[in-house]
């Protein structure tokens, strides 16, 4: 009898299917790897299993009985422990208090907490798990690996029989990952089932018994790990051929360098990043979430300073202190989360656009209304923004039109370098094509475009070159025939060995 069984489990958000009917079994003592691209539905599946989300349909059978977990705590009490990427722990409390939060604490005869015995109990649990961490230490003082170990120890002290780990190695160094694996091996031997979610395929191969591949919310393949190789996993993850047609009207040219980075680094974000973007060129920046792409893009725009290395803009040293300086220098940035970082949703479309150039029109602090309206009108037409007029509230536009408004805001400044962060996230197919055409046209006008994108077809289809980031540095530069989805995924997992595997500073 399997420990856990999913039958036709599905989940939708606002009509979008995040999980198509899923069938999956997991036995005690088995390690199942769960892989898939960003947005394939891995997180949703974990949330359904751990009681964060309720499935729309289907049956989850846990230890032979149908289970419906309403809260994470119910799932935990039933024996399903989840270690999320973001650990939920109390930083200002001690390790012992974190381990035993919610459990009864040992008391003295007169009712006071027996701190000594509390810490002894915690030490016993830590030792049982082979951990050498003083229980009196503050949780926030621990290293990322120690925090994770404490979180795992806490989960297992509650007799968890299924341990779900979501990208546990994302913030760990190599020796720390090895230690984690040793722990997991011991748990497997003790009969604990493990669901291991990771982007790092090398880890999946090393650790798991079986692999389940999610793609677009669908469980496309489940097979024993030893029957599969990395190539097959990648193929299953990617699945779709590059069928969409991307515009490429601009002439191939190797003009002057617009933006150059030389061994640029910022502590904890990115290291040793070197590349150049030429005018008239689109350079894609691919990689996993958290690889440092957005951070790099924001540093180029001046949102935070760079610790090491040098940047150059049109041949001159570029050390922006704030975004204003970047705008004046002809560099614009379109942020990743347009709703949080890009737009004031309550503003009108006209205001949202004119905020980008009104300072150019202003005379003694006043903005001539006629000139502003004319410019906004022109932007609405140029960018084919479908709004009832400049007065419509921007929050009521579709995602694609919001994104176009955001682009329109800056492009009227005639920028020469454009940094885009996920330009088509959450945008429908039609608007996507329009935005792609727009980006292509901009490059055709000789602007240098750096595009961060997690969508592989987009980044491959649009770019002249693709840089892949992994763990804060550029792990590969792909060009020409090497620009394939497989290579991007391999490079993002640190497994790419092909031509040009080392970043060249072209």
């Amino acid at each position, binding site marked *: 009898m399997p420990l856990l069984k999913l039958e036709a489990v599905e989940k939708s958000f606002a009509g979008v299917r995040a999980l198509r009917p899923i069938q999956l079994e997991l036995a005690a003592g088995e390690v199942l790897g769960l892989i898939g691209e960003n947005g394939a539905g891995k997180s949703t599946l974990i949330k359904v299993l751990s009681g964060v989300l309720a499935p729309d349909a289907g049956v989850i059978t846990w230890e032979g009985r149908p289970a419906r977990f309403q*809260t*994470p*705590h119910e799932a*935990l*009490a039933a024996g399903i422990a989840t270690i999320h990427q973001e650990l*939920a*722990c*109390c*930083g*200002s*409390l*001690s390790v012992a*208090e*974190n381990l035993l*939060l*919610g*459990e009864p*604490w040992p008391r*003295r005869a007169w*009712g*006071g*907490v027996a*701190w000594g015995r509390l810490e002894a109990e915690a030490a016993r649990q830590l030792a049982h798990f082979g951990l050498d961490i003083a229980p*009196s230490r*503050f949780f926030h003082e621990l290293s990322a690996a120690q925090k994770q170990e404490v979180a795992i120890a806490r989960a297992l002290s509650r007799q968890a029989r299924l341990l779900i780990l979501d990208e546990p190695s994302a913030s760990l160094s190599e020796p720390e990952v090895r230690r984690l694996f040793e722990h997991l091996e011991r748990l497997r031997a003790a009969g604990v089932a493990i669901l291991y979610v990771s982007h790092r395929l090398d880890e999946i191969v090393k650790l798991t018994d079986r692999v389940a591949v999610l793609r677009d919310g669908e469980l496309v393949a489940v097979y024993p790990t030893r029957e599969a190789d990395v190539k097959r996993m990648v193929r299953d993850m990617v699945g779709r051929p590059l069928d969409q047609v991307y515009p490429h009207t601009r002439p191939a040219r190797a003009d002057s360098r617009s933006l150059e980075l030389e061994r640029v680094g910022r502590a*904890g*974000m990115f290291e040793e990043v070197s590349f150049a973007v030429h005018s008239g060129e689109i350079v894609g920046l691919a990689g996993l979430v958290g690889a440092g792409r957005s*951070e790099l893009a*924001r540093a180029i725009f001046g*949102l*935070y300073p760079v610790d090491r290395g040098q940047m150059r803009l049109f041949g001159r040293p570029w050390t922006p202190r704030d975004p204003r300086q970047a705008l004046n220098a002809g560099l614009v940035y379109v942020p990743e989360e347009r709703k949080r970082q890009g737009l004031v949703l309550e503003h009108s479309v006209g205001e949202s656009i004119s905020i980008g150039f009104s300072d150019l029109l202003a005379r003694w602090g006043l903005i001539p209304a006629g000139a502003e309206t004319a410019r906004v009108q022109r932007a609405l037409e140029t960018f084919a923004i479908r709004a009832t007029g400049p007065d419509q509230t921007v929050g009521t536009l579709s995602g694609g039109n919001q994104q176009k408004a955001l682009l329109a805001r800056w492009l009227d400044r005639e920028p020469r370098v454009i940094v885009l962060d996920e330009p088509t996230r959450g945008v429908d197919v039609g608007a996507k094509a329009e935005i792609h055409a727009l980006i292509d046209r901009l490059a055709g006008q000789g602007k240098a475009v750096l595009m961060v994108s997690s969508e592989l077809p987009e980044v491959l289809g649009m770019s002249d070159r693709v840089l892949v980031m992994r763990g804060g540095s550029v792990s590969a530069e792909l060009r020409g025939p090497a620009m394939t989805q497989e290579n991007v995924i391999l490079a993002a997992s640190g497994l790419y060995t092909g031509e040009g595997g080392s970043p060249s500073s072209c």
Partner: protein
Amino acid sequence: MLTRLSPYLRQRLAFLVAGNVVLLVAIALLLKQGASFSDVLERCGPDVAPTVLAGLGMTGVIFTGAIDISIASIIVVAGTVFGILVQRGGSPAACYAACVLVTWLLSMVNGWLVRGLRVPAIIITLAGLTFYRGLALVIADMAIPSFTGNISVPDEAFHGPGKVYGGWILVAVLAGALAWEAFARVPRRWLALGSSEEACRLAGLNPGRILQSAFCASGLFLGLAGLIFVTRVQAIEPARMALGFELQVIGAVVLGGTNIFGGEGCFAGTVLGALFLYFTAQVLVYAGVNPYFQEAVTGALIIGVIGLDCALHRRRKLLEELA
């Protein structure tokens, strides 16, 4: 107990102890002929008691990540009820009990509203700040014929807690509170809630109940603070009584190293913070600084300290958010 304080908090405590010693030395040096230092210390107890006691309660609420800025208005309601009962011929014990009970109940109501409406505590209690003071005026106007703005309590029998026992109440409650903090689990849960609500929920704890217990304890401390506050004055004036008291209390809490966003802090810091503010005011008095200026300096000190604390935390938060 000290081992459960972070190095940052221990440093803040040491800094406050040193600061208070410096201020006391300054007071001693500034004392005029005929004034004795022991008088200063004797007066200090009852003077500082309301701020310290209310501060202990506020510390617990801020531990959880909430705040209560309506405490001054709550004291005003309690004081008004107290005054009315005195005028109606209530016994001192009954009047004192009513004062404490009203304070506790209104604190509990704040907790219930924050939980029930799921509105941030600062908004709920901002409304309470004006609502309760208005409520006090309405009650006074209804209960007292020809109410002219203040309720006088001339009988010295009704001034025991404020004028006679204030210092002793303070010492006793303080000792109890510090011991309780050192050996009880509840304050640790408040800190846990302020540190990570998610972690509490995952551990099977009920965040709402933890929050409520903080408001409950705060109500008890505030009840005693209010009792001392109310029984120190000859006339209770609902419209003007305890104006700005909440700022002074929050100032003491934050000065004491408690994180205004919750999750970190200690009672001892609040006590030292309250003393620091009090001695600062005393130094200004003994130095003969213009009274108008004194208010301004005290206000500037509070704003300066809270502003600094927020700026430091905001910087950290901002960096986390951008990362």
